């Protein structure tokens, strides 16, 4: 079960550190270099064992359904994080934005609503209620209660919305 995955994981684990740590002076580089080497050796041994011991030939995921179940959570989560901050390039001269930041509250509303609608399959007014209620509760607790300032949207910076 582990074969493909461990090999993949380990090649990443073993390559990454050796690329990053220039074997240099015994000062600040010494410690990470050895940490990386230990990790590389240990993961190679793990990979070797995984490859040499006979194992049941089946996928890492039990069928495509469970992979899909994980992706159903993972992909919206990534999109959600991107929505909050927006996507763009920043060079020293200018900032180029592909997607403007939606801020925490708008993104949360979309995200919670999506789940209620897509995975929960609730009626539309329930979806609407969740979409509105959660950001408001979070606003009350964090922005007012704990005085934590969460990322604001591009509509906030242009003065159109209070969040």
């Amino acid at each position, binding site marked *: 079960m582990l074969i493909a995955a461990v090999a993949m994981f380990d090649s990443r684990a073993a390559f990454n550190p050796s690329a*990053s740590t220039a074997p240099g002076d015994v000062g600040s580089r010494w*410690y990470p270099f050895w*940490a990386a080497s230990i990790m590389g050796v240990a993961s190679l041994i793990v990979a070797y064992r995984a490859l040499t*011991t006979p194992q049941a030939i089946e996928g890492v995921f039990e069928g495509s359904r469970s992979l899909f179940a994980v992706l159903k959570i993972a992909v919206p989560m990534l999109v959600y994080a991107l929505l909050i901050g927006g996507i763009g390039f920043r060079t020293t001269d200018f900032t180029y934005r592909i997607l403007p930041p939606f801020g925490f509250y708008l993104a949360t509303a979309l*995200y*919670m609503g999506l789940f209620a609608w897509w995975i*929960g399959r609730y009626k539309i007014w329930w979806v609407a209620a969740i979409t509105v209620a959660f950001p408001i509760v979070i606003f009350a607790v964090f922005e007012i209660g704990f005085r*934590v*300032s969460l990322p604001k949207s591009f509509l906030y910076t242009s003065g159109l919305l209070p969040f």
Partner: protein
Amino acid sequence: MEVFGQLAGGFAVALHPINMAMLFVAVVLGLVIGVLPGLGGTSGVAILLPITVFIAHGSLPGSDATTAIIFLAGIYWGALFGGVITSILFNIPGEPWAVVLLFDGFPLAKRLGKPGLALASSFVSSFLGALVSTILFTFFALPIALKALEFGPAELFAVFALSFATLIGLGAEAPMKSLAMLALGLLLAAIGFDTITGEQRLNFGQISLLSGISFVPVTIGLFGIGEILASAEEQGIGFVENISARLGLRDVLEAVRELRKRLRLVLSNAIIGFFFGVLPGHGATAASFLGYGLARQYSKNKENFGKGEISGIMGPQAAADSAGVASLVPMITLGIPGSPTSAVIMAGLFIWGLQPGPVLFIQHPDFVWGLIASIYLGHLLTFVLCLLAVPLLAMIMRVPYAIITPFIVVISIIGSYSLNNSMLDVFITVVFGVIGYWLRKMKYPLAPLVVALVLGDSTERELRKALIAGHGSPLYFFNSGLSTVLLVLAIVLVLIPLVRSIRARRRGVSPTAGAGSAAAHP
């Protein structure tokens, strides 16, 4: 006795209204976290850690760092108790340490029709286990800390090395995987400025990586998001079982009677759990399995195990709760976390501006003794709440998946963002969430990674201070008797799995099976 005076002072701190209020909130939150299958004690503590920054800095009237640690520790106590409720009632463990309760807790509730007794037995034994452990904590903490005050860099490094060695040598997973995770943790901790020379390293020219990768977003990702993804895969199992979750006084009395019959088992398991919990990397989960094994080993009617034997509930619960409490001992006294959860709490101490370790006892006695007193109070509170609120807690399981999952993600993201107001931290959380899920899937242990991440900097600092003091000679470590003993012990611990696998190979068993058998608890 000096201890009693200190403890009384601690109770005065812990009984302060704001501290009591936060303890109550924390315990309730902990119970809820414990009941929710997608959210464990470690992730609950990690997600709520950023909020404690505001508590520690006085956002609430009268709150300070002591309130913050009482809050964090309270979540842990709640989760220790709460995880078993779903194991017993629904056959779904709410927490990793509640997995053992599936063997006997669920059968007792379902097959023998005594859910109340099963729950009550688990609660009384948890409570007694925690009480024993807290008493040991009270008396052991100060002597250990005073001894630790005399440590120089060599001894400190030896202690760190020993704790890493226990993670490898006594870990539940394959030792090589533990070693790899340990090294990864040290490596991640090394990112950013070097603490001694101030050189930058491993930042690939990125300014944002100069201050290093913060511990909190990484842990929120590894545990919070990682668990969400892992539980997403198990969705659809569902629970159709519907056991009445009522808990009467009769059940409690019966549980106390059963407890009296098993007092020796519970007490000895609690003491073993304590010493197990003090060892780094072995929190409640490993102790609960050990406790089950011991309960079974010394039972007269072994055949009843797995069919609803009460010893099979009380044994592991006493050990698990005891170990949970004990895992704070090395954190407070030496600055070495005894479990992933206490690693997260320790990160909290750093963020609140405290240095975990022996100096705490000198500089902040209120903090330490307030915490210890709150452990007594917290467990009493948890115990009472559990007896009263089981039906309510069982209802939490009905909160639909489509709401709870995104909600946990949202809270995790608030947590990782608000600590440094940084979107980079949010992305770190998301990325480490995926990594954490993958590691879980590949059966890599997360404890060494987290412990190494939180200890990485201090380990390196002490190592290099010792080397500088010894003019680059590693023999410096063997100048003092204590550090020699500790280092030799560390080397022996690392060699244990190696010896075991060589032996297994001689017997003609495959080496991984040999290494794995260490993991296969009964």
